[in-house]
């Protein structure tokens, strides 16, 4: 006698009974009390066979091993660097994991990374005492210069990336910017054209705010086309025609 009381993607609040009976299993964000499965978070219901899971609407980033995150250097010590990765405990980048080079005793560490620098790092280890070890060995892990960092809700990172990176690739291509997304919700954006860069920032803000709505990829695409199309009309007359042609050819395709 099991009964499911919610639907897929429904927004639930803590304490809400999601299902009755023993046929369902509580997963992330839910717990069992006698026969009932109860939500412990505000979020969207995700059903996977018998499992009931909540995808939280908001919440802190919880570090996991091998996550690639973007953080800011907050302290330098003889052991290495301390990095803020939006987690309540400390994250350490130790000397041995920081560079391939040999660092001699007594070297000024600021010549590698200074306080305030933004780094793309990998979480090497999450110890039991909540101290996190970071590493810089791996492709694409480096100090980030020339660009800006914005923050989104960590639980919305998968939405920003989209299925097989569809969303982020679209934003990158349309705005001609380089975008790096850390699992902790820090996003690095750098573009050659400041106007397009701002459009990318705004688009990411919209995704952060409206992540739960359906058909977000399409509405973001429309938003980008609108914004960039208008800009092009203003700037160069020739480009306007190109855009029109593009639109027409797209219509034909449809």
């Amino acid at each position, binding site marked *: 006698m099991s009964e499911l009381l919610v639907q897929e993607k429904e927004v639930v609040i803590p304490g809400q009974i999601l299902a009755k009976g023993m046929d369902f299993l509580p997963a992330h964000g839910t717990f069992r009390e006698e026969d009932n499965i109860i939500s412990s978070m505000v979020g969207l219901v995700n059903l996977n066979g018998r499992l009931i899971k909540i995808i939280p609407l908001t919440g802190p980033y919880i570090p996991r091993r091998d996550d690639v995150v973007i953080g800011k250097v907050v302290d330098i010590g003889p052991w290495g660097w301390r990095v803020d990765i939006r987690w309540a405990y400390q994250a350490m980048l130790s000397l041995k994991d920081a560079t391939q080079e040999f660092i001699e005793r007594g070297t000024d560490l600021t010549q590698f990374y200074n306080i305030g620098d933004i780094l793309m790092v990998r979480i090497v280890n999450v110890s039991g005492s909540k101290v996190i070890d970071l590493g810089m060995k791996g492709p694409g892990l480096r100090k980030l210069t*020339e660009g*800006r*960092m914005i923050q989104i809700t960590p639980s919305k990172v998968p939405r920003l990336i989209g299925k097989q990176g569809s969303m982020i690739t679209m934003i990158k291509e349309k705005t001609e910017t380089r975008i790096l997304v850390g699992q902790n919700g820090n996003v690095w954006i750098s573009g050659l054209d*400041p*106007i397009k860069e701002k459009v990318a920032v705004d688009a990411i803000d919209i995704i952060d705010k409206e992540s739960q709505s359906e058909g977000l990829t399409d509405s973001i695409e429309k938003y980008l086309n609108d914004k960039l199309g208008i800009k092009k009309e203003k700037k160069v007359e020739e480009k306007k025609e190109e855009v029109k042609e593009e639109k027409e050819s797209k219509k034909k395709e449809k």
Partner: protein
Amino acid sequence: MKSHVHTLAEKGFRLDNRKFDEYRPVKVEYSPLENAEGSARVTMGKTVVLAGVKMEVGTPFPDTPDDGVLMVNSELLPLANPDFESGPPSIEAIELSRVVDRGIRESGTIDTKKLCIKKGEKVWMVLLDIYPMNDDGNLFDAAALAGIAALQDAKLPEYKDEKVDYTKKTSKGIPLSKVPVECTVVKIDNHLFIDPSREEEKAADARLTIATIGKQLCAMQKGGDQALTDKEIEEMVDLAVKKTEELRKLLKK
């Protein structure tokens, strides 16, 4: 982030694509607080500042026996910005309240003589409290605007038999003759910015807050660790006079 502000400035852009001399959308709301004698909320982009006026009857200072008293106080709550700490007022909080205070005081907008009830014994004391609710830069301009708006909004409570009845508001307001408005100009490399956001404030080399009444200057405060040349200060003043005129239009007469 800091270097990005500089690179963009070199290209003639700002982080949010504003012009160098452009304010974010500014909104002034009157009387958001019920229990204060007067209050105002100013929104400047994402920056929100709340100001409230309380009136008290107290003894005047011995050197000015027939003058009312103005006291400006501000507190930077951790609610507004994660960098703010709770506890005793920080240097920034004191500077903010002092700059707002100076703008209002030095413009001579409050006719303090009219706030006197009995010479040497009883005067009205105007307590202006500034509370930033959200700090996305440029607290100075927002706080000064909220401060003067709250003063405009204030109504004296009823005073009878040496007692103040806060439940009854009279129709009498605080006697104001002018409208001081402040404008902060920051210098980043060789560019002058108006209404800096939080990131721009961090990247700024120097800043100058200018309080004006019409075309007249009444107070100034310099901040940041770089020097300003005469020419730059003149440019900043011209800019501030122009921009405060725009802000003044948002206030009621």
